[in-house]
């Protein structure tokens, strides 16, 4: 009896979160922006990169999906606003009066956000891959130069696509966890962007291979985007799926901290 009640409550929470997300037209524009940015930047990079000879060392998968680096920011904004807007408008109190189980609210938000991000992410990634497939062979990414299967075999391609979509979902969840912890969309987006972008620059400066390797293993963006690699996978500082696992750890840690604070704090 109790179990049925809980399920019904969660379904209501899901439906409420979906309605909130759906009816703020800004979200629709931003998810559309994710797709356009990811595909557009991918097209720009694919169009300007040439592979003049055998062994030019360019990774066709990573090149086509360069736009994910920008797309992830939009996804993070959607995530951060999902909670940040409720705090800034005071809506969060209404939400908690209607649904006093706060963990359930967070879980519902996470579920809706994941679904929406996965959908937008899949469109973005497939679009970017398609553009890469069309454009790159004209720039020297040909069988003669070692790109017989442009993005690797079927298994690799599946890993690149599924992995990139999962990466976007995990970045969204990271943003959700952080904004739940700090309760301000401005502070949260600052933290997310710093986590994503400062590590790669720091890694560039450190100039000690051991440190660089370890930093690459823990930095969310560097470890996570390894899943897009189609060339020299063995040389990655951390395996593609393990790298995605690192991002998952970041996201889970943020959600656990955010969820704990949410339960123990006044709204």
């Amino acid at each position, binding site marked *: 009896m109790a179990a049925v009640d809980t399920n019904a409550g969660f379904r209501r929470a899901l439906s409420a979160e979906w309605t909130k997300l759906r009816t703020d037209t*800004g979200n629709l524009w931003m998810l559309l922006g994710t797709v356009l940015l990811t595909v557009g930047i991918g097209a720009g*990079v694919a169009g*300007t*990169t*040439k592979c003049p000879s055998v*062994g030019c*060392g360019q990774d066709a998968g*990573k*090149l086509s999906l*360069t736009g994910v*680096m*920008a797309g992830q*920011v*939009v996804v*993070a*904004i959607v995530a*951060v*606003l999902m909670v*940040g807007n409720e705090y*800034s408008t005071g809506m969060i109190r209404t939400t908690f009066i209607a649904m006093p189980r706060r963990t359930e609210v967070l879980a519902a938000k996470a579920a809706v956000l994941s679904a929406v991000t996965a959908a937008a992410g899949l469109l973005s990634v497939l679009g970017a891959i398609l553009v890469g497939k069309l454009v790159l062979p004209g720039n020297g990414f040909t069988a003669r130069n070692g790109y017989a299967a442009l993005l690797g075999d079927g298994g690799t391609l599946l890993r690149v696509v599924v992995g990139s979509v999962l990466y976007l979902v995990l970045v969204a969840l990271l943003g959700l966890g952080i904004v739940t912890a700090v309760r*301000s*969309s*401005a*502070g*949260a*987006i*600052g933290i997310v*962007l*710093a986590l994503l*972008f*400062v590590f*790669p*620059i*720091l890694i*560039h*400066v*450190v*100039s*000690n*291979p*051991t*440190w660089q390797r370890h930093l690459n293993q823990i930095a969310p963006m560097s470890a996570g985007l390894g899943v897009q690699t189609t060339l020299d996978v063995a040389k990655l500082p951390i395996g593609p799926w393990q790298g995605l696992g690192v991002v998952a750890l970041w996201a889970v840690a943020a959600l656990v901290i955010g969820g704990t604070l949410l339960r123990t704090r006044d709204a």
Partner: protein
Amino acid sequence: MTLTENQTPRTSPPLSDGGRAGFGRLLHAEWTKFRTVRGWAFGMIGALVVIVVVGLVGTAASNQNGGGGALPVGPGGEAVNDSFSLVYQPLSGDGSIVAEVTSLTGVVAAGGPNSGTTAGLAPWAKAGIIVKSSLDQGSAYAAIMATAAHGVRMQSDFTQDTAGLSGTVSSASPRWIKLVRSGDILTGYDSTDGSSWTEVGTANLSRLPSTVYVGLFTTTPEAATQTGTGVGMVPNVATGTFDQVTVGSGWNQGSWTGKQIGRDAGTSGSYLPNTSASYHQDGNSGAITVTGAGDIAPVVGGSAFASGRPIENFLVGGFAGLIVVIVIGAGFMTAEYRRGLLGVTLAASPRRGRVLAAKGLVLTTTSFVTGVLAAVIALPIGEAQSNSNGFYVATVPFGTELRVMLGMGMLLAAASVLALGIGTIVQRGAIAIAIPVVAMVLPYILATSGALPDGASNWLLKVTPAAGFAIQQSLKVYAQVYTTYNPSSGYFPLAPWAGFAVLCAYAAAAYAIGAVLLRRRDV
């Protein structure tokens, strides 16, 4: 009715006389808001701390290849390579030296370790005559030399370089070179036959001592090879042959002494295993051969400076500080929209353009001070840490160091205005933060990661706000030194101030659009 009500305050004496005083009050009001909102005041201090701390992390690792220590510094204040094989004699007063360079050959490492050597030379391998004020590294000098692929060059004090005769040297086509001292002035000449001379250039070495070291030198930087992952450098050793060496016009020929200047080959050269600086005088012809490696040139970044760091690397934390400042800058405006405070603010001072100006002034001042303070703390710490961890630090003239430090403040100030402008336009905090961060930081990451081809990287650093980071480029491009001059080795496509102007243009545009919208829109 409402119209007249709105107009009344504008024409009433207290505000109309209050041009400057009014703005002063406005400034004071904005400063009070900034100071008393805990997040903003602490945020600025946080930006300072984060710049220093991230810089500490960035320089905490030690150099696995060893090496490091202080680099010699040239007369101009810049770090230099001054390592070469020299055959010299000390000579006083004015005089001249002439030599016929009949060959310049070399060996390079064939690739991987223990894979032997092949004949070859870096394009900037050099053999010539030099007048140097002392045998210490970094001391003033003038030299005229034959190079492997850039003809005869007259060079002085590391940064000056003038071209003479072109073509390569051989016994069939030798190059005669001459250096004449007259007080502080050194004049270089070249010739194909030793009788008809052409002046190549002059060098004014201020306060040159009476006794100078005059001699023959050979040196060469490492040679570049294409590897799978880009340009790699392999050890290179050069040998120059000098015939008909004559010292005269006031100088009295003494005996020659051989010496390696610099304890090793510097940051851009290296000896092959089992080779070292050497010289040999032929008993019959009197021709002198000199073998050496290293370089006499300013330090540059990139592949020629593998174990070194330019000083802007110590400000890597600036990227984290930048994000903090953008959060504050955007929030300074969007918080007013969110809290509905803007209505009150604009009722108190209806000239909306001035409100934005006051906000901008408070933001730029505080972020500039924060950035400069952080740089003043982080630079010396980073330099000391890098030195003790075995990395070379590329010292720069004081003027350049000042530009890098002030640049940190200017970058933060420009970013804060960009964020303020975008915040006024979009009115939503998260978006107003994400746009400037992505516009400034993402192109920088893409351009310096080496993932994009150089053409695309350079384009990004010309047209996006990331161009502004050029203000912190401390190393110069020197045509007479070969390296990978590209964004991933710290070289921007635009000059420091030109790049910063691009960022300022974006900030100004965002600010202007924000000001227009603020005036036109309902609150």
